[in-house]
């Protein structure tokens, strides 16, 4: 009974918030955020343990694996774009991946963060479903990783345009590739304000850096942690 209630409330809230987001497309209206906040509030107010919610929630969670596989479809559709800009896109993705990993690692070392927090933060620039699976693979705290991914996304969506101005980053490829590989989906949504090409490059960079990150993050964790 509780399981069914958990499934229906999650899916129901998500569909409602998705409709609201279609009308009112602000980053803080993203259905993942609004649905999660509402459910967390309900669990805390009514003192429902997370494990009780997950009796139903796990069935939705089980779809995540096949859903990640489905990302092959847009990556296949965009294969022409990859071959067209192969050097600038692929080398930039590598720069993004390494600078993201090294900088967050050094900062957290400086803050004397725990081992668990280091592993949790490493996948922060990957798109959420893949970040969660990488976090699980390397032994991070999965829900915290998901939260950090969203913080990376909002950082890019809100402050990305300021960086573009300060650093004089003013081409579609460089804007798309930097936001797509550092701030994934939430960052890419900001690129709608620049143009069609920014978005295509951005979503391509997001997809490719997720695949690349699934290899490099665990390798980085293995070598340095």
């Amino acid at each position: 009974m509780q399981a069914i209630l958990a499934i229906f409330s999650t899916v129901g809230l998500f569909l409602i918030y998705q409709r609201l987001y279609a009308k009112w497309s602000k980053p803080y209206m993203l259905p993942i955020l609004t649905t999660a906040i509402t459910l967390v509030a309900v669990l805390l107010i009514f003192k429902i343990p997370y494990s009780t919610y997950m009796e139903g929630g796990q069935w939705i969670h089980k779809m995540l694996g096949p859903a990640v596989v489905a990302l092959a479809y847009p990556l296949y559709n965009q294969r022409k774009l990859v071959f067209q800009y192969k050097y600038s896109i692929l080398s930039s993705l590598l720069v993004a991946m390494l600078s993201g990993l090294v900088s967050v690692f050094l900062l957290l070392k400086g803050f004397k963060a725990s081992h668990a927090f280091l592993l949790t933060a490493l996948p922060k620039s990957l798109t959420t479903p893949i970040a969660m699976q990488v976090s699980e693979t390397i032994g991070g705290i999965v829900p915290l990783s998901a939260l950090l991914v969203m913080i990376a996304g909002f950082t890019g969506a809100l402050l990305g345009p300021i960086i573009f101005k300060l650093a004089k980053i003013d081409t579609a490829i460089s804007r798309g590739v930097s936001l797509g590989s550092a701030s994934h989906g939430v960052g890419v949504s900001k690129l709608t304000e620049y143009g069609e090409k920014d978005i295509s490059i951005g979503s391509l960079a997001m997809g490719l850096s997720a695949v690349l990150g699934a290899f490099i993050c665990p390798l980085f964790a293995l070598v340095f942690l």
Partner: protein
Amino acid sequence: MQIIRTIAQIGILTIYYYLGVVIVNLTGIFIPASIVGLILLWLSLYFKLIKVQYIQDGATFFLAFLTLFFIPSTIGVVDHPELLSKAGLYLILAVIVSTLFTIALTGKWSQWIEKKEAAAKDGEQ
């Protein structure tokens, strides 16, 4: 008919996912099974082992609801109040600073390569 086709295609995507699970279990590699499945599917499409029409509707369905599937794990933050500690705030700060640094460096790098490529092309002509 549309619904049946979508469900069947979700089945195909799920088979690719489980192929990934089997490969990860057999080889013990540290890559998520879903990524192995994604790469297998991409290769299958690229080498025309399967037609894109066989997965199109299923993939479109999954992508439309992608964020729904990670809500249950995200809610797991209720079991981690340590995020509201000093260490948690440092964690968030590190992610913000690292993201800003990555955007700036990647954007500059990409623009530099792009200009070099354009210059090389002009030289050829």
